[in-house]
Every structure is written in structure tokens, then in C-alpha cells.
């Protein structure tokens, strides 16, 4: 346990030294503030609270930005240490490889959590000062959005490790990370949409469609935040989808957690097999 904490501590310190954490916080806070103030202008007409609008716009931001930051942090975790020559020494120390991996995971996740909470929190606070009171409902969905953003980040940190443990070259890891980001964040949805249009509902049932959505962590995140709430889904353009989806919040969270656990376990397995 001590060894895991030591590794996590080093990753956090490294993140702070390299201005990684600072950069992530500033980027997220900057974009979040911009989005929430641009988005809050027309809310009076729709009758939605400004925080609810912000949840919608920040969710969309999360889907693009958080996986990117997570992959940037994680894709280099093992292959980079191997390349710099620090891995061999670390492996000769009294700690197992899964402890190294898990320690790094905790460290990187901490950086990501701090960046998300500070970045989005700043946007939320600024809105609170600008608009006054919020109802508990909106605050709840805001908190859930921040929490699920961190969980989505964890998914991509785990995927980054899987890449990093598998490949031999840093450049390959970077390329694969970009590829995974493109596929899961952009292309999968487009492909699914194309499939639905081409199929015209003949072979793909609503149930099958639901399961297809669970195959992409970004879609699970979307369902969790945009379709799960009756008020937000209305103006997030997800209302039609929300009626179709039969999964409860617990199922979606479990699916997202599985998206963390499976790649992380696979990464640990590959790492334990690899010769340094």
C-alpha cells in the first residue's frame, strides 16, 4: 500500500513540476467560463436555470477535452519510462508491476480530478455570483456532471495505460492515443448514426441500439448527463433519445466503471508479461 502511495505521490509531484496540472486547470476553467457565460445569455426565455444550461454545455466540453487530457497524461506512463531508462531501475525495487501501474493511476487521476473540480468549480462559482440562487436540483446535476467527468477521465487514463504497456515506441503510443480519442469521441457516434439511417429501423431494435451505446464510454457519459434529466434533456436535444433508453443511472455508472476496470486490468496483465 505504501509503495502505491509513493508512486502516486511522485506522479502528482511530476505533474505539478511540469506545469501539467496547472495547464489542465487553466484550460478547463477558461473554456468552462467562456461556455457558461456565452450559454447563460438566452436562458430566461426557455425557463431553465443558468446552471442547468451550464451542465449541458460543460458536458459537451467534457466529452472532447477530458479524454484528451487523460490520454496526454497516460499514454507515456510506461513506454516513456522505458524509453528514458527509469523503468528498469524501478522494476528492481521491492514492488510489483501492478503496484506501479495502480500508483500511477491514482496519481494521474488525482491530477485530473483537481483540474476538473477546480476548472468546472470556478465556472459554477462564477455563475453563482452572477445569477444568485440555485435550486438543489440543478446543483445536484452539476455535481453529478463533475463526478462523471472524472470517471470518464479515469476510463481514458486506463486506456492510455493499455496503449503504453503494449507498444515499444513512444511515437506509436501517441499515435494510438489520438486514434482512440478520434474513434471513441467522434467516429463511433457518426458510424452509429450512419448505421441507423441506412438501416431505417429494420434490423436494429431499440434494445440493440441501447447496447451499442454502452460500447462507447463517451456515449455512456452523454446518457448519464444529458438524457438522464428531464429538464436538461429537453434543450440538450436528447429528449427523443431519452425516451428510448431503458438503462437506469446505476447501470450506466456500472458500465462506465467497467470501462475503467477492464482496460486497467488488461494493462496490468500486459505490463506483467513484458520484458523490460
Amino acid at each position, binding site marked *: 500500500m*505504501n*509503495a502505491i502511495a*509513493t508512486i502516486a505521490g*511522485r506522479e502528482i*509531484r*511530476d505533474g505539478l*513540476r*511540469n506545469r501539467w496540472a496547472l495547464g489542465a486547470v487553466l484550460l478547463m476553467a477558461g473554456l468552462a467560463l467562456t461556455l457558461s457565460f456565452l450559454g447563460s445569455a438566452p436562458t430566461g426565455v426557455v425557463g431553465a436555470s443558468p446552471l442547468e444550461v451550464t451542465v449541458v454545455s460543460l458536458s459537451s466540453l467534457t466529452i472532447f477535452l477530458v479524454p484528451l487530457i487523460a490520454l496526454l497524461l497516460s499514454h507515456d506512463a510506461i513506454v516513456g519510462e522505458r524509453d*528514458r*531508462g*527509469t523503468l*528498469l*531501475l524501478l*522494476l*528492481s*525495487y*521491492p*514492488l*510489483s508491476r501492478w503496484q506501479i501501474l495502480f500508483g500511477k493511476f491514482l496519481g494521474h487521476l488525482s491530477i485530473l480530478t483537481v483540474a476538473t473540480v477546480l476548472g468546472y468549480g470556478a465556472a459554477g462559482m462564477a455563475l453563482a455570483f452572477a445569477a444568485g440562487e440555485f435550486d438543489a436540483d440543478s446543483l445536484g446535476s452539476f455535481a453529478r456532471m463533475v463526478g462523471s467527468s472524472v470517471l470518464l477521465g479515469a476510463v481514458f487514463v486506463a486506456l492510455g495505460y493499455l496503449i503504453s504497456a503494449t507498444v515499444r515506441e513512444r511515437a506509436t503510443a501517441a499515435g494510438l492515443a489520438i486514434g482512440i480519442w478520434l474513434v471513441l469521441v467522434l467516429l463511433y457516434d457518426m458510424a452509429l448514426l450512419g448505421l441507423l439511417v441506412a438501416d431505417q429501423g429494420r434490423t436494429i431494435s431499440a434494445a440493440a441500439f441501447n447496447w451499442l451505446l454502452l460500447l462507447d464510454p463517451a456515449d455512456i457519459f452523454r446518457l448519464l448527463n444529458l438524457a438522464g434529466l428531464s429538464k436538461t434533456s429537453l434543450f440538450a436535444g436528447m429528449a427523443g433519445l431519452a425516451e428510448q433508453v431503458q438503462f437506469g443511472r446505476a447501470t450506466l455508472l456500472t458500465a462506465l466503471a467497467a470501462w475503467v476496470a477492464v482496460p486497467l486490468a488488461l494493462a496490468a496483465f500486459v505490463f506483467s508479461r513484458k*520484458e*523490460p
Partner: protein
Amino acid sequence: MTTSPTIFMEGVSKRYGESFVVRDVDLSVAPGECVAIVGHNGAGKSTLVKMALGLITPTAGRIALLGENPAGRQAMAFRRRIGFLPENVAFSAAMTGREVLRFYARLKQVPLAVADRLLERVGLAAAAHRRVGTYSKGMRQRLGLAQALLGEPRVLFLDEPTTGLDIESRQMFYDVMAELRDGGATLLLSSHALSDIEQADRIAIMKAGRMVACGALPELRRQADLPLRIRVHVVDGTAAREFTARRGVQWLDDLRFEMTCADDGKIETIRSVSLLEGVSDIEVMPPTLVDLCDELTREAAE
């Protein structure tokens, strides 16, 4: 425990596909002993060290480190008592020397005060608060030694430990090594530098994955039975010319000639040369380590 070997290898081989990186190596190192592995790049030295550490598993053969399988489950416990200085050691550049050493001390569960003392021991106390990225090669190497010394190791693996070190740092290295051996620690080092190898009790010569010879330096010299060279300087060559003509010795230039002789004929040759008139200096040059390695490798191949 005092008599059983600290490092024990029997018939150890490592194969990647069809090619052997290490082939059928036997080695046994006793507590308090220092063995140097010598060989060209790619001879399998680093692979042998990695196998002894349990970082990679051999294709065939048996390895025991402190009586245990280094790649086994119980390895975690005794790794605390093992020091390793990898070839071209590297550390995260953003951390200071003190932070690096404390990080490794925590992993080995060594008190942090010990880490600070070791930093002083290797002469890095003044640079303790500088980032490792600003360190010179020699300073990084000394930091590498410091981390290998954490936890009073009973076995140390030093892979090319003195590359990039100046004479002063080298001497510090040798002092530390002598101290460790006096304390009963076992040392296995791989090196090209003759001064490193002279610190060792035994030398193991590797060639293309095989261990072609293993023994103390004088023993290996006897085994190779290479002639040594005697270079003679003269101020006036007239007397010597007659002597060299009789023996068919070539002159290097007007005032120097060089002759070879077998190890057991050394004294006699020196005596006869020193009696010549006009001789000002006699240099005795034993076969170099490279000559020795080549000769023993050739003998093993035959």
C-alpha cells in the same frame, strides 16, 4: 549462509527466437566476493544481470539469489537487500537529487535520514536541492550509486558503474566498493575499464553469450600464456645493436627496441637487457585485457 553462494547460476540460457543472448552460463559468487564480467557490447552481460535480478526469466537453467528464485513470489521481500545500478542510469529530470533518493528510500522502506546521509557519502550534498536535469553524467552516476546503497544491500549489481566519472569520483566509488566487501556484501559488476576490473577478485569473460573464462586476473594471465613485451630505451645503441641482431629484434626507432618473452622467462630477459651498456629505461608491458580476452575467447572456441 556464510558458505552458500549469494549468486548462483547453473546452465543459464536466454534465447530470443533462434538466437541465444546468453548460453549455458555457470557462475557462483560467494558472500564478500567481487566478480567482474568483461566482454564486448552485446556479449550478454546486461542480460545476465537482468536475469540475476529476476527482471527477465531464463529460457533454461537455474538461478538463485540469496538462496531464492529472483523471479519468484517471495522475491519482493529480499529485493530490499539488493542494490542495482543500471547502465546509463536515469532519473526523472524534474525532481531534485534529494527528492529522487528519498523516493527510492520510501520504496525500499529505508529511513529518509539514511538517504540524506548517502547523498553526502557520494558527494552530492551541495547539489541536493538542484534538479536532476541539471546534473552532469558523473553526478547522475553518483546518485545512481547512492540509490543502490540504500538498505545496506547484501548483493550489488553494478552495470558499467564508472563510465563518465572523473578520477576522484572513481576513487570514491572504489572506496565504497571496498567498504561494502569488508561488510560481507557480494558485488557483481560489468565493465570495460581496467581500473574497475582490478578491484575484482575474479573476472568472468563473456563472448557471444558464453562465459569463456572465469578466474582471478593472474590466473587468467597464466591460462592465456600470452607473451609480455619489454620495451628498452637506450641513450647509446651501439652495444645493444649487437645484442638485438643476435636475437633478431626489431628497433622501433634509433633509441628504442621492443622484444617479447614468455611470462616465466621475464626475469632472465630483464636481467640480460639491464646489463647492456647505454640502457636508460626498461618498460615491462603485460598483455592488455583486450589481448587476454581475445586469446581466451580463441582458446575456448578451439
